[in-house]
């Protein structure tokens, strides 16, 4: 198969450009669209999907959308609307039109993510130990020491295999030219991968033919990969580790994901109160007494992990856990302390890290970032606040954000005052014209802005794996740029198209 690569890509249908299906009447509004080009013609690898959409009778897409929503509701993938006393439940919004990533684009993304994760792991090892990157003047030490996510408790630590961030969910966006940028590195407890798997499950059931003919790469082995990773990072003295997933509990918004992943891997889902530290080891309380735990995939934040080491008021964590971790008697994924590397100020330095540790140029660029700590940058930000997106360095989930062009004067003034008060806590970026994907609005398709969160697993410093797929988050409100599910965002299935020789997902895969 390899020698045929110079000919047309396998997914290109035979025939001429005139046969390429078009999405008539769809409004591009001047934005870059992921599925069709500026002439409304299907992009490479999206032809089959567009042809199917065109061939459907009116209302069919909506019918399938409703069928999927009902199935998600039955599966209990819901959250409770707290403002409603009747306990109304809603599913996480899902859109039936998938996002397609061509094999060529994916190659670029994959290479860029692997490079980035390698550099970030070198950085974490370095910053909590030798601090060479600071001594060599690449990153100012005050930026490190003032970062809220920097953990002094982790200084001098070396996790097994020298890997700190085992599981990453990097947020990517595309601008009006279609170029990919890294928007955020999520190195703490990135969530959403269960939606990738569930969305795929739904799409296979509802679009079996077009799915089968589109040569989509499978995502179904994520849980097995994750399990192997957790096994691989076990303390060296353990041969057959007991692995658990630590959740804050059923009221956490990502609880469904925690339970789904534990079930998919066949490991215990535990809460802090199920665990206890005794004699330098962690145990779980079982009906037959205490049982030792060797690897913890923890889905609670650093600050709540151990009330003895961090927040004393934490009831979610396990008292004494950090001590066991320091002794090397338990492995934690991700390692505590990774938050320093996804601080939004430190983010601005990642291209420099890549140069410093790997002697390479970043394959995936950052979104240009103004660091308000810097006098020139701050001056620029304050003068152009109506054009910029301003973000708090230590926040995530779409909180602490000002979208300058959409904000009122009062809001801009409020953020300007905050920036002057504590410059270290703020960065700003140009407002990107995020790419769009056709999305069902009523019975018709309208463009909605999207981002993309691929998931990356890393068990050894140079062994990085990228799930061929990812979570496409979509801002369902017309014109909105905010894709977070807490603020009106939904998700789509993401189809990464296979090159010749790559495994293709089949409809029968579980």
């Amino acid at each position, binding site marked *: 198969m390899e020698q045929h690569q110079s000919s047309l890509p396998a997914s290109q249908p035979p025939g001429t450009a005139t046969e390429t299906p078009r999405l008539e009447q769809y409004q591009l509004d001047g934005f870059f669209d992921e599925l069709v080009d500026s002439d409304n013609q299907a992009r490479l690898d999206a032809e089959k999907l567009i042809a199917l959409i065109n061939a459907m009778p009116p209302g069919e897409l909506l019918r399938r959308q409703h069928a999927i929503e009902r199935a998600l*509701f039955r*599966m*209990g993938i819901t959250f409770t609307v707290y403002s409603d006393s009747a306990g109304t439940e809603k599913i996480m919004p899902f859109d039936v039109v998938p996002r397609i990533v061509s094999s060529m684009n994916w190659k670029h993304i994959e290479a860029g993510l692997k490079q980035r994760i390698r550099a970030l792991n070198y950085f974490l090892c370095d910053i909590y130990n030798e601090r060479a990157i600071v001594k060599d003047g690449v990153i100012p030490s005050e930026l490190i020491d003032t970062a809220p996510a920097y953990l002094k408790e982790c200084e001098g630590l070396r996790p097994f295999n020298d890997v700190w961030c085992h599981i990453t969910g990097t947020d990517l966006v595309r601008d009006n030219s279609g170029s990919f940028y890294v928007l955020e590195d999520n190195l703490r407890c990135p969530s959403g991968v269960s939606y990738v798997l569930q969305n795929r499950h739904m799409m296979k059931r509802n679009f079996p033919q077009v799915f089968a003919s589109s040569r989509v790469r499978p995502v179904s082995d994520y849980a097995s990969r994750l399990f192997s990773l957790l096994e691989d990072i076990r303390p060296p003295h353990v041969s057959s580790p007991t692995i658990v997933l630590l959740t804050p509990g059923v009221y956490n918004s990502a609880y469904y994901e925690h339970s*789904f992943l534990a079930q998919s891997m066949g490991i*215990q889902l535990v809460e802090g109160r199920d665990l*206890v530290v005794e004699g330098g080891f962690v145990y779980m309380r079982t009906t037959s*007494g205490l049982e030792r735990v060797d690897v913890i995939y923890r889905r609670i934040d650093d600050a709540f992990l151990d009330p003895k080491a961090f927040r004393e008021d934490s009831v979610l964590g396990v008292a004494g856990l950090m001590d066991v971790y320091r002794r090397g008697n338990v492995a934690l994924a991700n390692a505590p302390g990774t938050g320093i590397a996804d601080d939004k100020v430190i983010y601005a330095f990642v291209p420099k890290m890549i140069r410093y540790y790997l002697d390479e140029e970043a394959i995936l660029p950052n979104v240009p970032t103004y660091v308000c700590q810097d006098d020139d940058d701050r001056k620029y930000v304050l003068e152009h606040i109506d054009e910029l997106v301003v973000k708090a360095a230590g926040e995530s989930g779409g909180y602490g954000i000002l979208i300058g062009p959409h904000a009122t004067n009062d809001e801009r003034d409020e953020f300007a005052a905050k920036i002057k008060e504590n410059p270290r806590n703020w960065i700003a970026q140009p407002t990107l014209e995020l790419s769009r994907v056709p999305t069902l609005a009523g019975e018709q398709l309208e463009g909605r802005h999207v981002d993309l969160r691929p998931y990356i697993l890393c068990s050894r410093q140079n062994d990085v794996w990228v799930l061929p797929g990812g979570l496409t988050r979509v801002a369902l409100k017309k014109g909105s740029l905010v894709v977070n599910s807490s603020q009106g965002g939904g998700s789509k299935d993401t189809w990464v198209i296979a090159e010749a020789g790559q495994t293709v997902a089949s409809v029968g895969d579980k």
Partner: protein
Amino acid sequence: MLSRVAESIYWMSRQVERAENLARFIEVTLHMTLEQPDYLVDPWQPLVHATGDNELFQEKYSVANATNVVRFMAFDSDYPSSMISCLRAARENARCVRDSLSSESFQHLNDFYHFVRDAPESQLSDPTSDFFEKVRERSLLWSGIVDSTMPHHVGWHFLNLGRLLERADKTSRILDVKYFSLHKRMDQVGTALDDLQWSTLLLAISGIEAYRREHHLVDIQKIVAFFVFHQSFPRSIFPCITGAKWSLRNIENDCGADVPGNASQQLSVLHHRLANSNAQEVISRGMHEFVDDFQHQLNAVGDSLATDFFHLTAAS
């Protein structure tokens, strides 16, 4: 198995069983009102008494008619033992242990909860509606799903234990109340009405056909024997206790317990007593006293489960 998970599974199972029994009580009572002339025995007040929460009912509803009692027992979210409250709690417990259940089990329970929650108001106390029959069916389906999609290891035994203890408790309760309210009307013994009432009682535990095949005619002592001492009828008290004892033994084996715990010992005593008693003895001693005593012993078993398995103090 995690102690917390074991406890949640145990309660989840009890709560579904409890909801099913409430549906059974209401269903047969609604049907009875269809067949019974208005001027005879009021079937609703005894049902409220059976809940043990008469005061709460009086406070909120005062009059024990069909609408009020059905609303209270089935749909009152403020009443923690109503059918909807039980199903909500069962589903919450299921969510906490979702990773330990088969996906079919969870989905079914999730559906079941929404089915009851979204029940149309008009059907609630309409004796011709099949709503409570559907609830009963869904609960039976739940039983079938958990039994045939999960390995019968320690988790399933906790589930089975919860189910059987709850069922034994409810069978004794319905017998207690009905026995009390029916038996005092001795003047009607042997009448058509009496026949109807006792048949209804058997219907509530799905036992009417099994009883008729064995005994043909209504006889109070035989009915008591059927409810309490039948060797194999699945909703009769004795088989429930036998099954619970068996599951508890399996749990203890799995946990590597050297000596039987408190719960196990109490359950053995209870089993032994039932094995050496009969309906005549129960009736002559007094039905209410028997049921009272039986429920106390069941509660003691439940309390001991907590200390034996769910809330172990740290000692490996």
